[in-house]
């Protein structure tokens, strides 16, 4: 009886320890929602939009984590590729679903090339993948700006003058994507409500069904991919690189493939994200995508070595709940919306820092334990003798 009780208590504390980050966020949100004074209808509608907008991008992070390469800060490379695709589609004024698909087709080869580059670079920096991919993002950002801000309209032809800066070359810093705005979201519209559950009232809620279907397809892909030979190899490499190598798995090649897949998916994700936003901020949309996706995944309870589909959706909901609520809560609490905004910036960065610290801490302890047990082993042998 007491035995069972203790294991339950242990389980409970283990559950809290393992899910500390999401639990903290649920508590923060639970406190901030009433303070913000937003209606349930508004919150649910906003969340549904944001889930559709961001999930694909965040899902693209899963595969490198599986291959033991940590959080792929290089996903911004894919986002840039997607944006280049969108710039061309905008210039050619291809509208609607064909526009989105064409942007993806243009973005894919660029994303594959950048992904290959990223994979090769990361193979030269094993053990430092995250910081390297992070800096690589900055580096490619420089090249991206070189191309978009100087080459486009100069020797990369851009016919639509409304996209180009008045000096004659370079793309403007904000491009209106009116032609493909919410095209995917409105492809299969569904409006539900209003509901009345007791005294609880919900108004009309629009659900972007097509976007959700695409995301669902992606989830199925991830589930399927885990079971393929390639997916198994990646998991093995994620577990132990040396062992996989001696088992005949081409480690470097598989790692490159993992990054390429992630980059291409991030490219698609960015296009889906931007078709919902309706405006392309040419010079910073991609950076924001990387940083918010990673923060959201970590808030969903993922770690640097373990992340699943569940983490993605929990993360998207909690992160964006905080994102919507924080400024209003800050305003109502402190009289300044700015405090709430800085708070959510602080939380986004802080959560990444905390997750990285927890991960490094665990790894550090594991190494120490391994050393201790190595030292301990001969003693046991002697004792046995």
């Amino acid at each position: 009886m007491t035995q069972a009780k203790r294991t339950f208590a242990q389980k409970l504390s283990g559950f809290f320890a393992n899910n500390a980050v999401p639990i903290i966020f649920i508590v923060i949100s639970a406190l901030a929602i009433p303070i913000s004074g937003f209606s349930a209808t508004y919150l649910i509608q906003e969340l549904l939009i944001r889930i559709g907008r961001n999930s694909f991008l965040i899902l693209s992070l899963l595969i490198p984590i599986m291959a033991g390469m940590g959080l792929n800060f290089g996903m911004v490379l894919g986002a840039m590729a997607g944006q280049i695709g969108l710039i061309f589609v905008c210039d050619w004024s291809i509208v609607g679903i064909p526009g989105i698909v064409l942007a993806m087709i243009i973005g894919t080869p660029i994303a594959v090339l950048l992904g290959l580059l990223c994979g090769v670079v990361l193979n030269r920096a094993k053990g430092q993948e995250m910081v390297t991919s992070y800096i690589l993002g900055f580096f490619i950002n420089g090249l991206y700006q070189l191309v978009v801000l100087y080459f486009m309209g100069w020797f990369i032809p851009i016919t639509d003058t409304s996209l180009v800066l008045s000096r004659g070359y370079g793309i403007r810093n904000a491009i209106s994507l009116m032609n493909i705005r919410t095209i995917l979201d409105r492809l299969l519209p569904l409006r539900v409500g209003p509901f009345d559950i007791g005294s609880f009232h919900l108004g009309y809620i629009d659900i972007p069904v097509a976007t959700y279907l695409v995301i669902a397809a992606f989830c199925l892909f991830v589930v399927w991919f885990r079971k393929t030979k390639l997916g198994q190899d990646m998991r093995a490499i994620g577990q132990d690189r040396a062992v996989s190598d001696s088992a005949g798995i081409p480690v470097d090649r598989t790692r490159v493939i993992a990054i390429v897949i992630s980059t291409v998916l991030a490219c698609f994700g960015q296009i889906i994200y931007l078709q919902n936003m309706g405006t392309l901020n040419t010079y910073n949309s991609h950076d924001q995508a990387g940083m918010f996706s990673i923060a959201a995944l970590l808030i969903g309870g993922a770690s640097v070595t373990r992340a699943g589909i569940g983490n993605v959706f929990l993360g998207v909901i909690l992160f964006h709940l905080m994102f919507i609520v924080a400024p209003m809560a800050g305003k109502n609490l402190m009289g300044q919306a700015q405090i709430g905004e800085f708070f959510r910036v602080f939380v986004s960065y802080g959560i990444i820092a905390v997750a990285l610290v927890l991960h490094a801490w665990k790894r550090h302890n594991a190494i120490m334990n391994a050393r201790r047990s190595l030292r301990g082993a001969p003693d046991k042998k002697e004792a046995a003798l």
Partner: protein
Amino acid sequence: MRSFIERVAALVVILIASVGLFYIGREHKVFLDNKTIEMEGQSFRALKFVRVSVAGKDPIELMPRDRDLLAVVGPSFKLKVEVMDEFGEDVEKTIERELKPGFDKDMMLSMPLLAADRDDYILPPPTGPARPPENDVKPTDELVIPLDAAPPTD
């Protein structure tokens, strides 16, 4: 070898598909122009009143010297022009045409020429429209001042 052929085939399919997407997804800006126009030494007066319907959309009514703009998607569309009397009551003449801009982008249609049953009614689009104001763009490696969280300014 076989996988090479397969890859090339896949590439070709994707290329064809993208050309197809370009073809069916291309948006054309159509300017409808009802101004007096000189052509081959002849002068064609602006129509008193004309009602134009493009691609089955709600008709647009043009007075003399009017110019209107609408967007059409796809490689071809139907054009229906009703030339009316000056009070806009009776239809004097109805012209129906099918236009095929195909891969081309924008075009301008001259109503007086169309009413005269000429085939050169498709003109190049006017150039130099007013451009929206812009901010100067500077390269930056600044990741985020996330969304709307810029610090206060003076």
